[in-house]
């Protein structure tokens, strides 16, 4: 009685359960994955924007992948304000030099990192953006300074195709 012998039946039971579990998972996965972005959504990867009409101190908002992208042509004061901020004062420390390679142009997703609202331009305590939904304040570099948002506004992949055109994505 002390020794329990593995019988043919035990083996069949284990094998059937294992194959059944793998089969169930193989059937469930397509049902879950069909909800992920489809090929047509993924195809809309990049947008080209003409920024020639944008004057310093103004923002252009364009739609990319269903999300607004802020293209801000910053003034001298805004750049200075963004660059003189000490790293230890930041919730999510990032240098303005890394966020805006060309200091005059700030290109970022206009999406609050808290719960996805679109922050308002030229508002808030740091002269940058203010999210009306739950009160997050962003500075002139789009970095989170105050409020519930955990991260700075995201910088998408972009490049200047020529002096007047930015390609996002």
């Amino acid at each position, binding site marked *: 009685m002390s020794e329990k012998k593995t019988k043919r039946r035990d083996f069949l039971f284990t094998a059937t359960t294992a194959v059944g579990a793998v089969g169930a998972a193989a059937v469930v996965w397509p049902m*879950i994955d069909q*909800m*992920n*972005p*489809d090929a047509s*959504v993924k195809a809309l990867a990049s947008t080209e924007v003409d920024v020639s009409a944008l004057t310093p101190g103004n923002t252009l*908002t364009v*739609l990319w*992948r*269903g*999300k*607004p992208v802020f293209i801000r042509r910053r003034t001298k004061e805004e750049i200075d304000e963004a660059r003189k901020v000490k790293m230890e004062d930041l919730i999510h420390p990032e240098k303005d030099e890394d966020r805006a390679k060309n200091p005059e142009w700030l290109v970022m997703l206009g999406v609050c990192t*808290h*719960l*996805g*609202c*679109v*922050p308002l331009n030229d508002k808030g305590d740091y002269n940058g953006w203010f*999210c*009306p*939904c*739950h*009160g997050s304040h962003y500075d002139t570099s789009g970095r989170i300074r105050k*409020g*519930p*948002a*955990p991260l700075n506004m995201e910088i998408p992949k972009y490049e200047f195709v020529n002096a007047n055109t930015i390609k996002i994505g």
Partner: protein
Amino acid sequence: MSDHDYRPKSKVGQWFNDRLPLLTLANHLTDYPTPKNLNYWWTFGGILTFCLITQIITGLTLAMHYIAHADMAFESVEHIMRDVNYGWLIRYIHANGASMFFLAVYIHIFRSLFYGSYKAPREIIWIIGIIIYLLMMAAAFMGYVLPWGQMSFWGATVITNLFSAIPLVGEGIVTWLWGGYSVDNPTLTRFFTLHYLIPFLILGLVVLHIWALHVPGNNNPVGIDIKKPSKDTVPFHPYIVIKDGFALLMFMIVFAFFVFYSPNILGHADNYIEANPMVTPAHIVPEWYLLPFYAILRSVPDKLLGVVAMLSAILILAVLPWLDTSKIRSAVFRPLYKQFYWILVADVLILGYVGAMPAEGLYLLIARVATAYYFLHFLVILPILGFKEKTLPVPLSITEPVLGGSPNLATARKKESKIE
């Protein structure tokens, strides 16, 4: 139970019932012994069943005209309002019906809290109820997205983004929920599908809720166990049917007032503007019935902890039967609990109020205090109260206080002695 001995009178009935005992079930439901002291707070179960059926019927008819597509949803809702015969009526009943449903469910839940209906042996009824409540919130949220107005779109964005607070996999989950990189057409079509499905899940759970209720029978305002059937009970039909029916009529007057005289007062004007992914409305607030939880979310300055606090505020209710350590059910015999109960009611109302206000200054401070108190009530006050509180003597039967004219035993006995 006696209904197992039930035998239909007619030969045909007997023939049928031997093969499928539906008549036995019907007999059980009509004869079901009910405490004779149930007050009007007990009529909301029936009212809620009415609300569910109303939402299903009006929802089915709306779905015959609605088009679940980002380019056409907003217009199809306007088409329902202007062109479809009685479309305005059906849509207003459905939209206000959601609010009426929540009004009734909150009364139903707070009745349970006052009379201790969640305590043994009714924990499973209570937990099924909490699951129904969660599904109701999911259905209401997704239904609000369907008209594809500004509040629909941004409400959907904010609520789905709650999942992005989950470490590591959060962003992936949000993309999966959206079916894209923002709330868009794939999101709308899946929300429509789920909005259609959930009411039927609720219907199934309601059957379980009532089934679980019929095992121990109803709790009652005195909160004592009763023998059934006995002098303390009356049959469900006609006694409770008539009482529930009368309360339902009163409820329908309130319902009709909203539908016919102020159909948009509980909504937001912004939702008559078509969804625009470029502009967030200046002030986003959820529907009134979600405001207390919204206030809890905003009162925590950390994203993940805010979401955790909001979810805990709901899920804590599921373990309430074990947090409340008092053996006495009804607050009538718990002088201290009764006071804390009303403080909790006030606390939830305050949370609802500050949830509708901007999250800054004094409002934020009040929201934080009220949030802290909400958790204090369930996690500290209730467990301690069960040990410390001096409860009042509980009557031995329902008949005792009913004849005396007061649920409080001492007063009842005093009155009885006066009569003598």
